Protein backbone atom coordinates (compact mmCIF):
# COMPACT_ATOMS: atom_id res chain seq x y z
CA UNK A 1 0.00 0.00 0.00
CA UNK A 2 2.79 2.32 0.99
CA UNK A 3 4.39 1.53 -2.33
CA UNK A 4 1.24 2.56 -4.17
CA UNK A 5 1.03 5.83 -2.30
CA UNK A 6 4.64 6.57 -3.17
CA UNK A 7 3.96 5.79 -6.85
CA UNK A 8 0.81 7.88 -6.78
CA UNK A 9 2.74 10.75 -5.22
CA UNK A 10 5.50 10.41 -7.81
CA UNK A 11 2.98 10.53 -10.67
CA UNK A 12 1.23 13.46 -9.07
CA UNK A 13 4.51 15.29 -8.64
CA UNK A 14 5.70 14.64 -12.17
CA UNK A 15 2.41 15.67 -13.81
CA UNK A 16 2.41 18.52 -11.39
CA UNK A 17 5.70 19.80 -12.80
CA UNK A 18 4.36 19.57 -16.35
CA UNK A 19 1.31 21.59 -15.42
CA UNK A 20 3.45 24.07 -13.54
CA UNK A 21 5.95 24.56 -16.43
CA UNK A 22 6.74 28.22 -16.19
CA UNK A 23 6.51 30.63 -19.15
CA UNK A 24 10.32 30.74 -19.10
CA UNK A 25 10.67 26.97 -19.22
CA UNK A 26 8.15 26.71 -22.04
CA UNK A 27 9.88 29.47 -24.00
CA UNK A 28 13.23 27.69 -23.65
CA UNK A 29 11.66 24.32 -24.52
CA UNK A 30 10.22 25.70 -27.77
CA UNK A 31 13.48 27.46 -28.69
CA UNK A 32 15.36 24.23 -27.99
CA UNK A 33 12.96 22.20 -30.09
CA UNK A 34 13.25 24.67 -32.99
CA UNK A 35 17.06 24.40 -32.68
CA UNK A 36 17.04 20.59 -32.57
CA UNK A 37 14.77 20.41 -35.62
CA UNK A 38 17.12 22.68 -37.53
CA UNK A 39 20.31 20.84 -36.69
CA UNK A 40 22.28 18.23 -38.54
CA UNK A 41 22.33 20.03 -41.88
CA UNK A 42 26.13 19.92 -41.94
CA UNK A 43 26.89 22.69 -44.35
CA UNK A 44 24.96 24.97 -46.66
CA UNK A 45 25.60 27.46 -49.47
CA UNK A 46 23.27 30.11 -50.87
CA UNK A 47 23.24 33.26 -53.00
CA UNK A 48 21.67 36.39 -51.60
CA UNK A 49 20.65 39.76 -52.98
CA UNK A 50 20.24 42.48 -50.40
CA UNK A 51 18.14 45.46 -51.45
CA UNK A 52 18.35 48.59 -49.32
CA UNK A 53 15.51 51.07 -49.59
CA UNK A 54 15.49 54.51 -47.98
CA UNK A 55 12.45 56.53 -46.95
CA UNK A 56 12.12 58.17 -50.39
CA UNK A 57 12.18 54.78 -52.13
CA UNK A 58 15.74 55.03 -53.46
CA UNK A 59 17.29 51.58 -53.62
CA UNK A 60 20.78 50.11 -53.62
CA UNK A 61 21.66 46.45 -53.84
CA UNK A 62 24.41 44.07 -52.80
CA UNK A 63 24.98 40.54 -54.05
CA UNK A 64 26.54 38.19 -51.52
CA UNK A 65 27.28 34.49 -51.65
CA UNK A 66 27.40 32.63 -48.38
CA UNK A 67 28.88 29.37 -47.16
CA UNK A 68 28.12 28.05 -43.70
CA UNK A 69 29.50 25.09 -41.77
CA UNK A 70 27.40 23.86 -38.88
CA UNK A 71 29.24 23.86 -35.56
CA UNK A 72 28.99 20.71 -33.44
CA UNK A 73 30.52 21.72 -30.12
CA UNK A 74 30.98 25.42 -30.97
CA UNK A 75 29.01 27.92 -33.07
CA UNK A 76 28.79 27.91 -36.88
CA UNK A 77 31.53 29.08 -39.25
CA UNK A 78 30.38 31.40 -42.01
CA UNK A 79 31.97 32.89 -45.09
CA UNK A 80 30.37 35.79 -46.99
CA UNK A 81 31.67 36.74 -50.44
CA UNK A 82 30.69 40.10 -51.90
CA UNK A 83 30.01 40.42 -55.64
CA UNK A 84 28.41 43.88 -55.74
CA UNK A 85 28.63 46.87 -55.34
CA UNK A 86 31.54 46.61 -57.78
CA UNK A 87 33.96 48.52 -55.52
CA UNK A 88 33.72 45.83 -52.83
CA UNK A 89 33.81 42.88 -55.22
CA UNK A 90 36.09 40.17 -53.89
CA UNK A 91 35.72 41.31 -50.28
CA UNK A 92 35.24 38.32 -47.99
CA UNK A 93 34.14 38.04 -44.39
CA UNK A 94 34.92 35.02 -42.23
CA UNK A 95 33.05 34.57 -38.95
CA UNK A 96 33.50 31.94 -36.24
CA UNK A 97 30.56 32.33 -33.89
CA UNK A 98 30.73 31.18 -30.27
CA UNK A 99 27.35 31.61 -28.57
CA UNK A 100 27.81 34.02 -25.68
CA UNK A 101 31.53 34.58 -26.27
CA UNK A 102 32.27 37.29 -28.86
CA UNK A 103 32.60 36.00 -32.43
CA UNK A 104 35.96 35.88 -34.22
CA UNK A 105 35.84 37.81 -37.46
CA UNK A 106 38.26 38.43 -40.33
CA UNK A 107 37.76 40.71 -43.31
CA UNK A 108 39.67 40.33 -46.57
CA UNK A 109 40.21 43.55 -48.53
CA UNK A 110 41.10 42.64 -52.11
CA UNK A 111 42.61 46.00 -53.18
CA UNK A 112 45.43 45.65 -50.63
CA UNK A 113 45.24 41.85 -50.38
CA UNK A 114 44.98 42.49 -46.66
CA UNK A 115 43.34 40.14 -44.16
CA UNK A 116 42.19 42.14 -41.14
CA UNK A 117 41.01 40.65 -37.87
CA UNK A 118 38.15 42.89 -36.79
CA UNK A 119 36.56 43.44 -33.42
CA UNK A 120 33.09 41.97 -33.07
CA UNK A 121 31.86 44.35 -30.41
CA UNK A 122 29.82 46.12 -33.04
CA UNK A 123 26.95 43.63 -32.94
CA UNK A 124 24.33 46.35 -33.14
CA UNK A 125 25.96 48.07 -36.12
CA UNK A 126 24.43 47.84 -39.58
CA UNK A 127 25.63 45.16 -41.97
CA UNK A 128 26.73 46.85 -45.23
CA UNK A 129 24.63 49.94 -44.52
CA UNK A 130 21.45 47.86 -44.32
CA UNK A 131 18.69 47.63 -41.69
CA UNK A 132 20.12 44.26 -40.63
CA UNK A 133 22.50 44.48 -37.72
CA UNK A 134 25.38 41.98 -37.47
CA UNK A 135 23.52 40.33 -34.56
CA UNK A 136 20.42 39.77 -36.75
CA UNK A 137 22.44 37.78 -39.28
CA UNK A 138 24.63 35.84 -36.88
CA UNK A 139 24.26 32.22 -35.93
CA UNK A 140 21.30 31.91 -33.52
CA UNK A 141 22.52 29.75 -30.65
CA UNK A 142 20.05 28.91 -27.86
CA UNK A 143 22.23 30.39 -25.11
CA UNK A 144 22.23 33.81 -26.79
CA UNK A 145 18.82 34.65 -25.26
CA UNK A 146 16.61 34.09 -22.26
CA UNK A 147 13.08 33.14 -23.28
CA UNK A 148 9.52 33.65 -22.09
CA UNK A 149 6.48 32.02 -23.63
CA UNK A 150 3.73 34.59 -24.25
CA UNK A 151 1.02 32.47 -25.89
CA UNK A 152 -0.27 31.10 -29.17
CA UNK A 153 -1.52 33.30 -32.01
CA UNK A 154 -2.58 32.90 -35.62
CA UNK A 155 0.20 34.25 -37.85
CA UNK A 156 -1.10 34.36 -41.41
CA UNK A 157 -1.75 31.75 -44.12
CA UNK A 158 -3.75 29.73 -41.59
CA UNK A 159 -0.57 29.08 -39.57
CA UNK A 160 -0.51 29.08 -35.79
CA UNK A 161 2.47 30.52 -33.99
CA UNK A 162 4.16 30.35 -30.62
CA UNK A 163 4.73 33.90 -29.43
CA UNK A 164 7.98 34.11 -27.46
CA UNK A 165 9.85 36.95 -25.85
CA UNK A 166 13.64 36.75 -26.25
CA UNK A 167 16.03 38.89 -24.24
CA UNK A 168 19.62 38.97 -25.53
CA UNK A 169 22.04 37.44 -23.02
CA UNK A 170 25.15 38.47 -24.99
CA UNK A 171 26.92 41.80 -24.48
CA UNK A 172 26.56 44.85 -26.73
CA UNK A 173 23.17 43.97 -28.20
CA UNK A 174 21.23 46.91 -29.62
CA UNK A 175 17.98 45.41 -28.30
CA UNK A 176 16.25 45.25 -24.94
CA UNK A 177 13.93 42.53 -26.18
CA UNK A 178 12.60 40.71 -29.21
CA UNK A 179 9.14 39.22 -29.72
CA UNK A 180 9.35 36.21 -32.00
CA UNK A 181 6.57 34.27 -33.72
CA UNK A 182 7.48 30.65 -34.51
CA UNK A 183 5.02 28.42 -36.35
CA UNK A 184 3.75 25.54 -34.23
CA UNK A 185 3.93 22.89 -36.96
CA UNK A 186 7.47 23.15 -38.36
CA UNK A 187 9.03 25.56 -35.84
CA UNK A 188 9.94 28.11 -38.52
CA UNK A 189 10.49 31.77 -37.60
CA UNK A 190 7.74 33.89 -39.15
CA UNK A 191 8.22 37.31 -37.60
CA UNK A 192 10.34 39.14 -35.02
CA UNK A 193 9.71 42.57 -33.50
CA UNK A 194 12.88 44.25 -32.21
CA UNK A 195 12.82 46.76 -29.35
CA UNK A 196 15.63 49.30 -29.02
CA UNK A 197 17.62 50.32 -25.94
CA UNK A 198 14.84 52.74 -24.98
CA UNK A 199 12.34 49.85 -25.26
CA UNK A 200 10.64 51.42 -28.29
CA UNK A 201 9.66 49.19 -31.22
CA UNK A 202 12.52 49.59 -33.71
CA UNK A 203 12.22 47.02 -36.48
CA UNK A 204 10.17 44.09 -37.72
CA UNK A 205 11.65 41.15 -39.58
CA UNK A 206 9.37 38.87 -41.60
CA UNK A 207 10.12 35.61 -43.42
CA UNK A 208 8.34 34.64 -46.63
CA UNK A 209 8.35 31.81 -49.17
CA UNK A 210 9.44 28.85 -47.07
CA UNK A 211 10.65 25.76 -48.92
CA UNK A 212 11.76 22.44 -47.51
CA UNK A 213 15.23 21.19 -48.48
CA UNK A 214 16.54 17.61 -48.38
CA UNK A 215 13.23 16.60 -46.82
CA UNK A 216 13.91 18.29 -43.51
CA UNK A 217 15.21 21.85 -43.42
CA UNK A 218 12.99 24.85 -44.06
CA UNK A 219 14.47 28.01 -45.58
CA UNK A 220 12.66 31.21 -46.58
CA UNK A 221 13.51 32.78 -49.92
CA UNK A 222 12.77 36.24 -48.59
CA UNK A 223 13.51 38.10 -45.36
CA UNK A 224 12.31 41.70 -45.00
CA UNK A 225 13.42 44.09 -42.30
CA UNK A 226 11.33 47.22 -41.79
CA UNK A 227 12.68 50.00 -39.59
CA UNK A 228 9.68 51.73 -37.97
CA UNK A 229 11.68 54.70 -36.73
CA UNK A 230 13.47 55.71 -39.94
CA UNK A 231 11.10 54.33 -42.60
CA UNK A 232 14.03 52.50 -44.22
CA UNK A 233 13.84 48.84 -45.15
CA UNK A 234 16.04 46.02 -46.39
CA UNK A 235 14.98 42.91 -48.27
CA UNK A 236 17.09 39.76 -48.55
CA UNK A 237 16.26 37.43 -51.41
CA UNK A 238 17.82 33.98 -51.18
CA UNK A 239 18.49 31.68 -54.10
CA UNK A 240 20.28 28.40 -54.84
CA UNK A 241 20.12 26.94 -51.36
CA UNK A 242 22.27 23.81 -51.25
CA UNK A 243 22.85 21.47 -48.32
CA UNK A 244 25.57 18.94 -47.50
CA UNK A 245 27.86 20.25 -50.26
CA UNK A 246 30.96 18.74 -48.64
CA UNK A 247 32.42 21.88 -47.06
CA UNK A 248 34.87 21.34 -44.22
CA UNK A 249 36.93 23.40 -41.76
CA UNK A 250 39.50 23.75 -44.55
CA UNK A 251 37.09 26.00 -46.47
CA UNK A 252 36.91 28.43 -43.55
CA UNK A 253 40.54 29.55 -43.24
CA UNK A 254 41.64 33.20 -43.04
CA UNK A 255 44.57 32.31 -45.31
CA UNK A 256 42.30 31.18 -48.11
CA UNK A 257 40.09 34.28 -48.18
CA UNK A 258 42.12 35.73 -51.07
CA UNK A 259 41.26 32.89 -53.41
CA UNK A 260 37.57 32.65 -52.56
CA UNK A 261 35.42 33.57 -55.54
Amino acid at each position, binding site marked *: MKKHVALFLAVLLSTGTVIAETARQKGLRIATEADVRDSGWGDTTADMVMTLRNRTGKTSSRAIRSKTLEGRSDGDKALSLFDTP*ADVKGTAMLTFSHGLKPDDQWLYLPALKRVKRI*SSKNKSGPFMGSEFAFEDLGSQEIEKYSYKYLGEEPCGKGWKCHKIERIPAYKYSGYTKQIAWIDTKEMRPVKIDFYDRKKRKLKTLTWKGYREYIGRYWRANEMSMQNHQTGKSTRLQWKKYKFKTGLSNRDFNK*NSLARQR
Partner: protein
Amino acid sequence: MKKIINTAFIFSMLLSHVAVAEWSGNVAVELRGFFSQGAWPGQGDGGISVSAQPEFRRQWDGGNLGVTFIPFARLDSMDDERSHADIRELDFLWVKGDWEFRAGISKVFWGVTETQHLVDIINQTDVLEDIDHEEKLGQPMLRITRTIGNGGIDLFLLPWFRERAFSGIEGRFRPPLVIDKDLASYESDDEEQHLDWSIRWNQSISNLDFALSWFQGTSREPLLLFAGEVLAPFYYQLKQAGLELQYTGEAWLWKLEAVHRETTTENYNAFVGGFEYTFVGINESAADVGVLLEYNYDSRDHLALTVFENDIFAGMRLALNDMQSSELLAGVMYDLDFNSKSFRLEASRRLGESYKLGVEAHLFWDVDPLDPMYAFRQDDFVQITLARYF
Protein backbone atom coordinates in the same frame (compact mmCIF):
# COMPACT_ATOMS: atom_id res chain seq x y z
CA MET B 1 41.16 48.67 -83.82
CA LYS B 2 38.02 46.73 -84.68
CA LYS B 3 40.13 43.66 -85.27
CA ILE B 4 41.73 44.00 -81.85
CA ILE B 5 38.33 44.31 -80.20
CA ASN B 6 37.07 41.26 -82.11
CA THR B 7 40.12 39.25 -81.14
CA ALA B 8 39.78 40.35 -77.54
CA PHE B 9 36.12 39.38 -77.62
CA ILE B 10 36.82 35.93 -79.04
CA PHE B 11 39.67 35.48 -76.55
CA SER B 12 37.40 36.34 -73.63
CA MET B 13 34.67 34.05 -75.01
CA LEU B 14 37.18 31.19 -75.14
CA LEU B 15 38.37 31.94 -71.64
CA SER B 16 34.84 32.10 -70.28
CA HIS B 17 33.94 28.72 -71.78
CA VAL B 18 32.31 26.41 -69.21
CA ALA B 19 34.25 27.48 -66.12
CA VAL B 20 33.58 30.50 -63.94
CA ALA B 21 35.23 33.46 -65.68
CA GLU B 22 34.80 37.12 -65.11
CA TRP B 23 36.12 40.57 -65.88
CA SER B 24 35.98 43.30 -63.30
CA GLY B 25 38.18 46.22 -62.31
CA ASN B 26 38.17 49.98 -62.39
CA VAL B 27 39.09 53.10 -64.33
CA ALA B 28 39.81 56.31 -62.45
CA VAL B 29 40.47 60.01 -62.89
CA GLU B 30 42.68 61.69 -60.31
CA LEU B 31 43.26 65.40 -59.73
CA ARG B 32 46.21 66.48 -57.61
CA GLY B 33 47.00 69.99 -56.48
CA PHE B 34 50.09 71.05 -54.53
CA PHE B 35 49.73 74.10 -52.29
CA SER B 36 53.26 75.44 -52.64
CA GLN B 37 55.89 75.67 -55.28
CA GLY B 38 58.20 72.67 -55.26
CA ALA B 39 61.33 72.76 -53.13
CA TRP B 40 63.43 71.57 -56.06
CA PRO B 41 63.73 73.04 -59.58
CA GLY B 42 61.50 71.56 -62.27
CA GLN B 43 58.77 70.24 -59.98
CA GLY B 44 55.17 70.68 -61.12
CA ASP B 45 52.24 72.07 -59.15
CA GLY B 46 49.66 69.40 -59.84
CA GLY B 47 47.79 67.82 -62.68
CA ILE B 48 45.36 65.28 -63.93
CA SER B 49 45.95 61.60 -64.14
CA VAL B 50 43.97 58.63 -65.44
CA SER B 51 44.41 54.98 -64.53
CA ALA B 52 42.93 51.63 -65.51
CA GLN B 53 43.08 48.27 -63.76
CA PRO B 54 41.05 45.55 -65.46
CA GLU B 55 40.93 42.24 -63.59
CA PHE B 56 40.34 38.87 -65.18
CA ARG B 57 39.73 35.74 -63.18
CA ARG B 58 38.84 32.25 -64.20
CA GLN B 59 38.31 29.22 -62.04
CA TRP B 60 37.86 25.56 -62.73
CA ASP B 61 37.07 22.55 -60.58
CA GLY B 62 35.14 24.47 -57.92
CA GLY B 63 37.98 26.93 -57.40
CA ASN B 64 40.77 24.34 -57.13
CA LEU B 65 42.34 25.67 -60.32
CA GLY B 66 42.45 29.32 -61.20
CA VAL B 67 44.04 31.99 -63.36
CA THR B 68 44.24 35.67 -62.46
CA PHE B 69 45.36 38.49 -64.76
CA ILE B 70 45.49 42.10 -63.52
CA PRO B 71 47.30 44.66 -65.66
CA PHE B 72 47.57 48.27 -64.52
CA ALA B 73 48.38 51.52 -66.34
CA ARG B 74 48.50 55.21 -65.46
CA LEU B 75 48.89 58.34 -67.58
CA ASP B 76 49.97 61.42 -65.66
CA SER B 77 50.03 65.01 -66.94
CA MET B 78 52.62 66.31 -64.47
CA ASP B 79 55.34 63.69 -64.21
CA ASP B 80 56.38 61.52 -67.18
CA GLU B 81 57.85 58.97 -64.79
CA ARG B 82 54.47 58.61 -63.05
CA SER B 83 52.96 57.53 -66.37
CA HIS B 84 53.66 53.84 -65.95
CA ALA B 85 52.27 50.37 -66.51
CA ASP B 86 52.70 47.11 -64.66
CA ILE B 87 51.38 43.58 -64.50
CA ARG B 88 50.06 43.46 -60.96
CA GLU B 89 49.08 39.81 -61.22
CA LEU B 90 49.33 37.04 -63.76
CA ASP B 91 49.32 33.79 -61.89
CA PHE B 92 48.12 30.27 -61.85
CA LEU B 93 46.66 28.64 -58.74
CA TRP B 94 46.33 24.96 -57.89
CA VAL B 95 44.68 23.80 -54.68
CA LYS B 96 45.09 20.23 -53.47
CA GLY B 97 43.64 19.50 -50.04
CA ASP B 98 45.59 21.53 -47.49
CA TRP B 99 48.15 22.58 -50.12
CA GLU B 100 48.03 25.61 -52.40
CA PHE B 101 50.50 26.22 -55.23
CA ARG B 102 50.85 29.52 -57.08
CA ALA B 103 53.16 30.32 -59.96
CA GLY B 104 53.48 33.60 -61.82
CA ILE B 105 53.37 37.28 -60.98
CA SER B 106 51.53 37.79 -57.74
CA LYS B 107 50.94 40.06 -54.78
CA VAL B 108 50.86 39.41 -51.04
CA PHE B 109 50.34 41.65 -48.03
CA TRP B 110 51.79 41.13 -44.56
CA GLY B 111 51.09 43.29 -41.57
CA VAL B 112 48.67 44.67 -39.03
CA THR B 113 49.59 48.32 -38.34
CA GLU B 114 48.39 51.49 -40.07
CA THR B 115 51.31 53.96 -39.96
CA GLN B 116 53.74 51.91 -42.00
CA HIS B 117 54.06 48.41 -43.38
CA LEU B 118 57.36 47.38 -41.86
CA VAL B 119 57.25 43.61 -42.21
CA ASP B 120 55.69 43.55 -45.69
CA ILE B 121 58.62 42.73 -48.02
CA ILE B 122 57.63 40.33 -50.81
CA ASN B 123 56.48 42.93 -53.35
CA GLN B 124 58.31 46.05 -54.44
CA THR B 125 56.47 49.26 -53.49
CA ASP B 126 54.99 51.34 -56.31
CA VAL B 127 56.02 54.68 -54.77
CA LEU B 128 54.76 56.55 -57.84
CA GLU B 129 51.19 55.60 -56.99
CA ASP B 130 50.98 56.71 -53.43
CA ILE B 131 53.26 57.94 -50.68
CA ASP B 132 51.64 55.64 -48.10
CA HIS B 133 53.47 52.66 -49.68
CA GLU B 134 50.34 50.55 -50.03
CA GLU B 135 50.52 50.07 -53.81
CA LYS B 136 52.82 47.29 -54.96
CA LEU B 137 54.44 46.03 -58.17
CA GLY B 138 53.69 42.49 -59.27
CA GLN B 139 56.38 40.04 -58.08
CA PRO B 140 57.34 36.89 -60.01
CA MET B 141 57.13 33.99 -57.58
CA LEU B 142 56.55 30.40 -56.84
CA ARG B 143 54.48 30.17 -53.68
CA ILE B 144 53.64 27.02 -51.79
CA THR B 145 51.11 27.23 -48.96
CA ARG B 146 50.24 24.59 -46.40
CA THR B 147 47.16 25.57 -44.42
CA ILE B 148 47.19 24.53 -40.75
CA GLY B 149 44.08 25.18 -38.69
CA ASN B 150 43.08 28.79 -39.18
CA GLY B 151 46.51 29.75 -40.50
CA GLY B 152 49.36 28.20 -42.39
CA ILE B 153 52.93 28.21 -43.67
CA ASP B 154 53.95 29.97 -46.89
CA LEU B 155 57.17 29.34 -48.77
CA PHE B 156 58.15 31.89 -51.43
CA LEU B 157 60.77 31.53 -54.14
CA LEU B 158 61.35 34.88 -55.82
CA PRO B 159 63.48 34.43 -58.93
CA TRP B 160 63.33 37.95 -60.38
CA PHE B 161 63.72 41.26 -58.53
CA ARG B 162 61.57 44.27 -59.39
CA GLU B 163 63.37 47.60 -59.22
CA ARG B 164 61.69 50.54 -57.56
CA ALA B 165 60.59 53.36 -59.87
CA PHE B 166 60.97 56.99 -58.77
CA SER B 167 59.46 60.39 -59.49
CA GLY B 168 60.98 62.26 -62.43
CA ILE B 169 62.25 65.84 -62.49
CA GLU B 170 58.66 67.19 -62.64
CA GLY B 171 57.54 64.89 -59.83
CA ARG B 172 57.05 65.60 -56.13
CA PHE B 173 58.11 63.47 -53.16
CA ARG B 174 61.70 63.27 -54.30
CA PRO B 175 65.10 64.34 -52.99
CA PRO B 176 66.82 67.40 -54.54
CA LEU B 177 68.51 65.18 -57.10
CA VAL B 178 66.51 62.92 -59.37
CA ILE B 179 66.93 59.19 -58.81
CA ASP B 180 67.85 57.49 -62.08
CA LYS B 181 66.63 53.90 -61.91
CA ASP B 182 68.64 52.98 -65.03
CA LEU B 183 71.82 53.43 -62.95
CA ALA B 184 70.77 50.76 -60.45
CA SER B 185 73.53 48.52 -59.13
CA TYR B 186 73.48 45.45 -56.91
CA GLU B 187 75.51 43.95 -54.13
CA SER B 188 74.92 40.47 -55.53
CA ASP B 189 76.66 39.47 -58.77
CA ASP B 190 73.39 37.88 -59.82
CA GLU B 191 71.87 41.38 -59.81
CA GLU B 192 68.09 41.22 -60.34
CA GLN B 193 68.31 37.46 -60.99
CA HIS B 194 69.33 36.72 -57.41
CA LEU B 195 67.05 34.02 -56.05
CA ASP B 196 65.34 35.59 -53.04
CA TRP B 197 63.31 33.39 -50.73
CA SER B 198 61.04 33.72 -47.78
CA ILE B 199 59.01 31.67 -45.36
CA ARG B 200 56.13 32.81 -43.15
CA TRP B 201 54.06 31.04 -40.53
CA ASN B 202 50.82 32.62 -39.42
CA GLN B 203 48.28 31.37 -36.93
CA SER B 204 45.24 32.47 -35.06
CA ILE B 205 44.75 31.32 -31.47
CA SER B 206 41.72 32.69 -29.65
CA ASN B 207 42.09 36.50 -29.55
CA LEU B 208 45.63 36.44 -30.91
CA ASP B 209 46.68 36.54 -34.56
CA PHE B 210 50.40 36.31 -35.17
CA ALA B 211 52.94 35.64 -37.90
CA LEU B 212 56.66 34.94 -37.94
CA SER B 213 58.58 35.45 -41.16
CA TRP B 214 62.07 35.19 -42.60
CA PHE B 215 63.24 36.86 -45.79
CA GLN B 216 66.62 36.50 -47.46
CA GLY B 217 67.49 38.36 -50.64
CA THR B 218 67.60 41.72 -52.31
CA SER B 219 66.40 44.67 -50.25
CA ARG B 220 63.28 46.21 -51.76
CA GLU B 221 64.42 49.59 -50.51
CA PRO B 222 67.68 50.79 -52.13
CA LEU B 223 70.46 52.97 -50.79
CA LEU B 224 70.87 56.10 -52.89
CA LEU B 225 74.39 56.88 -54.12
CA PHE B 226 75.65 60.08 -55.71
CA ALA B 227 76.27 59.64 -59.43
CA GLY B 228 77.14 63.06 -60.78
CA GLU B 229 73.97 65.09 -61.26
CA VAL B 230 71.67 62.28 -60.17
CA LEU B 231 71.26 59.61 -57.51
CA ALA B 232 71.70 55.93 -58.30
CA PRO B 233 69.86 53.16 -56.43
CA PHE B 234 72.02 50.46 -54.85
CA TYR B 235 70.22 47.24 -53.94
CA TYR B 236 72.01 45.43 -51.14
CA GLN B 237 71.47 41.95 -49.74
CA LEU B 238 69.24 41.70 -46.70
CA LYS B 239 68.14 39.18 -44.11
CA GLN B 240 64.95 40.05 -42.27
CA ALA B 241 63.20 38.33 -39.39
CA GLY B 242 59.69 39.66 -38.94
CA LEU B 243 56.96 39.46 -36.31
CA GLU B 244 53.32 40.49 -36.70
CA LEU B 245 51.01 40.40 -33.71
CA GLN B 246 47.45 41.50 -33.09
CA TYR B 247 45.33 41.07 -29.99
CA THR B 248 41.65 41.61 -30.72
CA GLY B 249 39.57 42.55 -27.71
CA GLU B 250 35.97 43.70 -27.73
CA ALA B 251 36.72 47.32 -28.60
CA TRP B 252 40.53 47.21 -28.48
CA LEU B 253 42.92 46.15 -31.17
CA TRP B 254 46.54 45.94 -30.00
CA LYS B 255 49.04 45.73 -32.82
CA LEU B 256 52.77 45.15 -33.20
CA GLU B 257 55.10 44.70 -36.15
CA ALA B 258 58.81 44.21 -35.52
CA VAL B 259 61.83 43.38 -37.68
CA HIS B 260 65.43 42.48 -37.16
CA ARG B 261 67.49 43.18 -40.27
CA GLU B 262 71.03 42.20 -41.16
CA THR B 263 73.08 43.50 -44.06
CA THR B 264 76.82 43.24 -44.75
CA THR B 265 77.34 46.63 -43.07
CA GLU B 266 74.82 46.81 -40.25
CA ASN B 267 72.35 45.01 -38.02
CA TYR B 268 69.35 46.85 -36.72
CA ASN B 269 65.87 46.54 -35.27
CA ALA B 270 62.69 48.44 -35.90
CA PHE B 271 59.14 48.19 -34.71
CA VAL B 272 55.76 49.84 -34.91
CA GLY B 273 53.13 49.17 -32.30
CA GLY B 274 50.00 50.63 -30.83
CA PHE B 275 46.27 50.32 -30.50
CA GLU B 276 42.96 51.15 -32.07
CA TYR B 277 39.93 51.65 -29.82
CA THR B 278 36.48 51.79 -31.41
CA PHE B 279 33.42 53.59 -30.07
CA VAL B 280 30.41 52.01 -31.73
CA GLY B 281 27.05 53.63 -32.48
CA ILE B 282 28.05 57.22 -31.76
CA ASN B 283 25.07 59.25 -30.45
CA GLU B 284 22.59 56.43 -31.15
CA SER B 285 23.62 56.56 -34.82
CA ALA B 286 25.08 53.79 -36.96
CA ALA B 287 28.48 55.51 -37.07
CA ASP B 288 31.63 54.15 -35.45
CA VAL B 289 34.60 56.23 -34.37
CA GLY B 290 37.97 54.66 -33.78
CA VAL B 291 41.02 56.28 -32.21
CA LEU B 292 44.48 55.06 -33.16
CA LEU B 293 47.84 55.56 -31.56
CA GLU B 294 51.03 53.99 -32.94
CA TYR B 295 54.68 54.43 -32.07
CA ASN B 296 57.42 53.88 -34.66
CA TYR B 297 61.00 53.07 -33.71
CA ASP B 298 64.20 52.35 -35.64
CA SER B 299 67.44 51.50 -33.80
CA ARG B 300 69.55 53.25 -36.47
CA ASP B 301 68.21 56.49 -34.98
CA HIS B 302 69.16 59.57 -37.03
CA LEU B 303 71.09 57.45 -39.51
CA ALA B 304 67.89 55.75 -40.57
CA LEU B 305 66.76 56.62 -44.07
CA THR B 306 63.23 56.05 -42.89
CA VAL B 307 60.97 58.84 -41.69
CA PHE B 308 59.74 56.50 -38.95
CA GLU B 309 62.71 56.41 -36.58
CA ASN B 310 61.08 57.81 -33.41
CA ASP B 311 57.61 58.95 -34.36
CA ILE B 312 54.12 58.86 -32.92
CA PHE B 313 51.00 58.66 -35.04
CA ALA B 314 47.68 59.71 -33.49
CA GLY B 315 44.63 59.33 -35.66
CA MET B 316 40.91 58.88 -35.95
CA ARG B 317 38.83 56.61 -38.11
CA LEU B 318 35.19 57.38 -38.86
CA ALA B 319 32.86 54.87 -40.51
CA LEU B 320 29.32 56.09 -41.12
CA ASN B 321 28.12 52.54 -41.95
CA ASP B 322 25.70 54.10 -44.42
CA MET B 323 24.45 52.97 -47.83
CA GLN B 324 27.43 54.71 -49.48
CA SER B 325 30.04 53.17 -47.14
CA SER B 326 31.41 56.60 -46.20
CA GLU B 327 34.75 56.41 -44.38
CA LEU B 328 37.42 58.76 -43.15
CA LEU B 329 40.89 58.21 -41.65
CA ALA B 330 42.88 61.20 -40.46
CA GLY B 331 45.83 61.71 -38.21
CA VAL B 332 49.03 63.45 -37.30
CA MET B 333 52.51 61.99 -37.32
CA TYR B 334 54.84 63.63 -34.84
CA ASP B 335 58.60 63.15 -34.94
CA LEU B 336 59.91 63.08 -31.36
CA ASP B 337 63.49 63.84 -32.43
CA PHE B 338 62.93 66.68 -34.85
CA ASN B 339 59.45 67.88 -33.82
CA SER B 340 58.45 67.59 -37.48
CA LYS B 341 54.75 67.11 -38.05
CA SER B 342 52.73 65.74 -40.91
CA PHE B 343 49.00 65.36 -41.33
CA ARG B 344 47.25 62.85 -43.51
CA LEU B 345 43.62 62.35 -44.43
CA GLU B 346 41.93 59.70 -46.53
CA ALA B 347 38.18 59.67 -47.14
CA SER B 348 35.90 57.79 -49.51
CA ARG B 349 32.25 57.46 -50.39
CA ARG B 350 30.38 55.39 -52.96
CA LEU B 351 28.32 57.36 -55.49
CA GLY B 352 25.40 55.40 -56.91
CA GLU B 353 26.18 51.74 -57.48
CA SER B 354 29.49 51.82 -59.31
CA TYR B 355 31.37 55.05 -58.66
CA LYS B 356 33.61 55.85 -55.75
CA LEU B 357 34.85 59.28 -54.74
CA GLY B 358 38.07 59.51 -52.79
CA VAL B 359 39.80 62.46 -51.17
CA GLU B 360 43.35 62.37 -49.86
CA ALA B 361 45.45 65.12 -48.31
CA HIS B 362 48.94 65.34 -46.84
CA LEU B 363 50.37 68.35 -45.05
CA PHE B 364 53.88 68.80 -43.65
CA TRP B 365 55.02 71.44 -41.19
CA ASP B 366 57.94 72.34 -38.89
CA VAL B 367 60.09 69.89 -40.85
CA ASP B 368 63.66 69.91 -39.53
CA PRO B 369 66.43 70.02 -42.19
CA LEU B 370 67.92 66.86 -40.64
CA ASP B 371 64.68 64.90 -41.00
CA PRO B 372 64.56 62.71 -44.16
CA MET B 373 61.06 64.17 -44.65
CA TYR B 374 62.67 67.59 -45.25
CA ALA B 375 62.80 66.91 -49.00
CA PHE B 376 58.96 66.76 -49.03
CA ARG B 377 58.36 69.85 -46.88
CA GLN B 378 56.83 71.80 -49.78
CA ASP B 379 54.74 68.88 -51.00
CA ASP B 380 51.45 69.58 -49.19
CA PHE B 381 48.71 68.34 -51.48
CA VAL B 382 45.07 67.45 -51.94
CA GLN B 383 44.00 64.70 -54.30
CA ILE B 384 40.50 63.87 -55.54
CA THR B 385 39.84 60.55 -57.25
CA LEU B 386 36.72 59.43 -59.04
CA ALA B 387 36.75 55.75 -59.90
CA ARG B 388 34.27 53.77 -61.96
CA TYR B 389 34.13 50.11 -60.96
CA PHE B 390 32.84 47.40 -63.25
